[in-house]
């Protein structure tokens, strides 16, 4: 994790609930994951679809970007489904 992550905020005084802590942790991890995913998709689709930047985004470029995002999400699904990553992590 980078320096932008901070520890989950304790709600009051010394007492805090495990549930609250884990809830905040999950939310922060989910947010970090989503940001990273978006950054990756931006990079890939810029490379594939914006070959020669013009003075505005063309219709071809826009539809390419749309398809690119869909395909990238689909590719992620293929990687997850067709492979037992969990088992692999256990074995390592």
């Amino acid at each position, binding site marked *: 994790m980078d320096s932008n992550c901070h520890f989950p905020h304790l709600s009051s005084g010394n007492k805090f609930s495990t549930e609250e802590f884990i809830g905040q942790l999950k939310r922060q991890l989910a947010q970090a994951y989503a940001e990273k995913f978006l950054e990756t998709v931006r990079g890939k689709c810029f490379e594939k679809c914006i070959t020669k930047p013009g003075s505005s985004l063309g219709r071809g470029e826009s539809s390419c970007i749309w398809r690119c995002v869909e395909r990238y999400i689909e*590719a992620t699904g293929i990687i997850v489904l067709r492979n037992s990553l969990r088992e692999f992590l256990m074995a390592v």
Partner: protein
Amino acid sequence: MDPSSLNSAELQRLISQEKERAMVNEMVAKLTSACWDKCITGTPGSKFSSSESSCLSNCAQRYMDMSIIIMKRFQSMQ
């Protein structure tokens, strides 16, 4: 689970579960990125061709095979 108390062992277990989940997500992200670069050579279409989708599937599995070989090689060096 009593929501108002801190159970250290329970907390550790939950944190470690989240850590594992984060590691899997990281692995998926890396693999998808690498396999996309290898397999999707042209402009993205409205669906994957059968060669593109089998390439993606194969890519992930070959990466796993490779990781195991690398591990074994390192272990044999020690």
